[in-house]
Structure formats: C-alpha cells, structure tokens
C-alpha cells in the first residue's frame, strides 16, 4: 500500500517535471530574448556605477574591466567635493518638493470638477485638457521665458514650481480615471446628508484614490527631478543650479574625469532609482492608466 503511494507520487512528480520542462522549452526563445534585452537595458546603470568605482588608471584600460579591480569609494567623496553638490542637491530637492506639493493640491481638485460633478460642457472642456498634452513645450518656451522674465522670476525657482499649482493634463487624466470608477451614489448620499463638494472630496473621494495620488506624487517628483531644459533656461546663476545642470561642471575642464562624473551621476539618480524600486507597482499602474487617454 505504502509502496503504491510512493510510486504514484513519483510518477506525478515525473510528469510534472516533464511538463514544466516542456513549458520551459516552449517559452525558451521569449525567455532568452527577455534576458538579452534585460542585460542590455541594465547596462547603462551598471556601467555608471562600475565606472564610478574605478580609478583613472583603470579607466584607461582596454579591454575595459567588467568589475573594478579595487573599489574606489573615495571617488564619491571626491565627486561631492568637485562641485557644490550639497547646494545643488538642496536646490533640486526644494524645487521637486515644491512642484510635488503643487501637483498634489491642484490636480485632485481639477479632476474632481471633471468627474464627480455633472455639468454642461464638462466633457468638451476635458477634450481640451487632453489636447494640451500634444502641444510641445519648446513651442511656448520662448514666450514663457519672456513672461516669467517680466515678472522678475528668472533666477528664482518660481517658474519651476508655480506652474504645478495650475494642474497638469496627464495627472488630471489619471486622477479622473480613478474618480470615475467610484459609484456616483456615494456622492449623492453624502449630498443628501448636506455635505459640501469639498467635504465629499476630502472625506470620501480622496481616501478611496490614495493609489492614484501616490502615482501623481511619484510622477511629479521624478518628472521635476529629471527635468533638464527648464532649469537650464531659468537658472543662470550658479548658486541656484539644480543637479541636472550642475553636472556640467565636470565638462568645464578640458579632459573629463569620467569616474567622478559617473559618481556624481550615481548620486544624482539614486533618489529616483530608489523611488522606482520601492514603488514599482505605482510606476507601472501610472503608465498603463496614462496610455488609456486615447
């Protein structure tokens, strides 16, 4: 009896192994392709970190070493000393947080008006919001610069923060998608109880869409942190530089010290990479929802 049980379970195991083997072989081309792509796509980040840890003698080696012979952690200290890193980091942080606060305040209000209240022309105006996504920023950047210059905002952080308080079409879209999924009856019941629209937004809608708010906060953070063109235009005084334009310091000398540049780049991208690793699910959800805007 016992022997029979053993042999049956052995057979099932064998069958299962064979089946999973077949599945492995069946999906092998796709798997190999994904592994190859993943390696290629991981390379830029890997090469940045590896280069940051090499000394200049090792950089001048050909073929290049795939791993540093000795880890030169002191490169990070040297990179931080090489340019006003802390100052640029604080500038970047201030702008990024300012824009993030603006996005998190303005976009839920706007999305609420586009989803939870029924009114005439609402949906036609919303098409206009979507249309603005397709207007390239360079088309208006000269005029915008002149507008901000006439306000005396050049060489301040204001042109990089204040626009976030007026909403962003993509974020409005994401939040609206989430708000539309909440049954209208919930709002109606609250209205009968005499709740104001603001009250409904803050005590009913917002708690239900925290994932969407997180997506907007993350996208806003990454978008501002990674921005290059706007800081380049508005921040001409060195003391106000963000990291994105501050990294150019490493190019001012005739020969670029790539290990230091890569060390500084690593420190610059670190917050974004950590954010991505921690909130991966939100990144993916946000991208997929945004794509539904067609």
């Amino acid at each position, binding site marked *: 009896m016992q022997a029979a049980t053993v042999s049956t379970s052995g057979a099932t195991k064998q069958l299962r192994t064979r089946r999973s083997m077949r599945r492995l072989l069946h*999906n092998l081309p*796709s798997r190999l*392709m*994904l592994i190859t792509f*993943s*390696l290629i*796509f*991981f*390379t*830029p980040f890997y*090469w940045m970190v590896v280069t940051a840890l090499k000394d200049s003698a090792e*950089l001048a080696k*050909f*073929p*290049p070493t795939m791993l540093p012979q000795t880890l030169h952690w002191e490169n990070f200290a040297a990179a931080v000393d090489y340019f006003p890193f802390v100052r640029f980091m604080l500038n970047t942080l201030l702008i990024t947080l300012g824009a993030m606060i603006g996005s998190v305040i*303005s976009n839920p*209000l*706007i999305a609420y*008006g*586009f989803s939870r*209240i*029924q*009114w*005439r*022309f*609402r949906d036609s*105006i919303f098409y206009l919001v979507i249309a*603005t996504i397709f207007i*390239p920023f*360079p*088309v*208006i*950047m*000269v*005029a*915008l*610069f*002149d*507008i901000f*210059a006439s306000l005396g905002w050049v060489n301040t952080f204001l042109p990089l923060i204040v626009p976030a308080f*007026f*909403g962003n079409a993509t974020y409005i879209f994401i939040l609206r998608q989430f708000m539309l999924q909440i049954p209208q009856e919930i709002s109606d019941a609250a209205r009968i109880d005499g709740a104001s*629209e603001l009250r409904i937004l803050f005590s009913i809608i917002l708690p239900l869409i925290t994932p969407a708010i997180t997506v907007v906060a993350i996208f806003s953070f990454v978008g501002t942190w*990674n921005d*290059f*063109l706007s800081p380049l235009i508005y921040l001409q005084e060195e003391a106000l530089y963000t990291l*994105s334009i501050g*990294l*150019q310091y490493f190019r001012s000398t005739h020969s670029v010290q790539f290990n230091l*540049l890569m060390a500084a780049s690593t420190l610059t*991208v670190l917050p974004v*990479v950590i*954010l*991505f*690793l921690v909130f*991966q699910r939100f*990144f*993916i959800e946000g991208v*997929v929802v945004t*794509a539904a805007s067609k």
Partner: protein
Amino acid sequence: MYLGMTRKEWRNMGLGLLFISPWIAGFIWLMLYPIGYTLYLGFTKYSGFGDAVWIGLANYQRMFSDTLIATSLYNTLYYTFFAMLIGVPFTILMALAMNRPFQEVSAYRAALYLPSVLPLFALSFIVIWILNPRYGLLNFLLSLIGVPAINWLGDPTWARMAIVLMAQLGAGQVALIYLSGLRAIPASLYEAATIDGASSLQKFRSITLPLLTPVILYQSIIGIGLGLQVFTQAYIITDGGPNNATMFYVFYLYRNAFSYSQMGYASAMAWVLFVISLFLAFVVFRWSRRWVIYDLV
C-alpha cells in the same frame, strides 16, 4: 430657468468651473497666451531686452535662406522617423515576450523599465562614456564579434544613429503600454482560432496585430511629438555636431533664443514647429483610418 438650464444645472456648472478654475487659469496664462505671444514675437526683432520691433514676415523669410533650418529639420525628421521605425516593432516584440507566463517577469520588467526612470541628462553622460572610441564598452563588445572600432561621436552618420539607438532605451516603458493592450485582447478569439487550426503566426497577423493598431496609433502620435522635441542628447552628448549632424530643430531654436538672443527669430521657429507638429499628427490620424481597427468582428 435661464438659457434652458435649471437652477440646479447652473449651480453645478458654477461648482464644476470653480473646481477646474486652477486649470482654466493655467491654460490661459501658461498655454493660450504664450502661443499667441509667440506668434506675435515671431513678427518682431527682439533680444529679450527692450522693446520688440515689428518686422513683419522677415523672420520667416530668413528661415528660408538659413541653411541650418533645413539641416536641423532634416536631422529631426530623420531622428523621429528612424527612432519609430526601429522602436515600434522592437517594443511590440518586447511586449509579446513579456506577455508569457514567466514567474520571474517582474525582474525583467524592472530591468527593462530602469532606463526610463533615469534622467535623460544622466543617460547622456553615460552614453558619452560607453561610446568612447578608445575605452568605450560598446566598441569593446563589438570588437568581440570582429567589428572594427567605430568613431561613434566623431562621424556624422554614426553620431545621428547613436542618438536614434539611444532612444530605444525608453522601450521598456512603451512596452508596458503594448502589454496592457495585449492583455485586453479576449482569450476567446485565440481559442476560436486554435479550433480553426490557425498557426501562431496567423493568430498574430489576424488577431494580435489588428487589435493592437489603436495602441500603435497612440504611440505613434506620442512618439512623433517627443521625436520633434529631441534636445538634451544634442546639448550634452554632441553639441549639435559633428558637422551639424545632430543639430536638431529644438536645439537650434534654443540656441537662437538663449545663446544668440534672437527671441523673435526663435519664436518664428517655434510657430513653425507648432504647425509641423499639428500637420504630422493630422497626417498620421488621416492615414490611420486605413489601418487602425477599432472592432475586429
């Protein structure tokens, strides 16, 4: 009842407008007005200081005789066209592979998405080093399969191609969008096709691809918009060179506005960019009627 709306409808419209008022203000102040102001500046000579002097169509006339306009426009369209020509099949292929039931798919997804979160300026610095003709990683890897060293950033054709290829590093993000398109295709269609004895290739051609066409259209419109704006790579990696091979339109616009203080001329360029963007989007939409399928049955 005023204008055919009840009191409640009026109230709701007031409330709705109140909630979206930040957007309305921003739309007027940061979008509509700048577009109009750009149009006006395009007819003036303006250094950014003092007054803008009306010069009529002179800026637009000058664009015709400025050879860098034609060069930068050509480079930009070249970049956009090839980045998409490679990118569309590449990202669809990636999405198809990611659609398989792999347990470790989240690891692939993380690796493939990583370059999309890295800032373009940092990626540009990394690419400079990877493309270094003497010590660079890419030439080393190519030498393993017998390819002689390429002077990537010193040769006009290779430099332009390098930026086209670099654009493919954004594929991970786009592939996720195709992936959600793939997942939306009903399994019953594939089951029916299997019963009819269709091969994998036939299923791809008559089910998968047609049902992905709306996503392809959306990605093409987005891709064209982004392609026309290519700037950072030229600014950091090549400075528009060699021999203006990577002098892209927006980079030249930026230079005119902020290096040469030719705000009027740059504004005229901006309006031309606006018209080109609208025109290309319109053409793709029109053309898409021939190949986008919204309903298979």
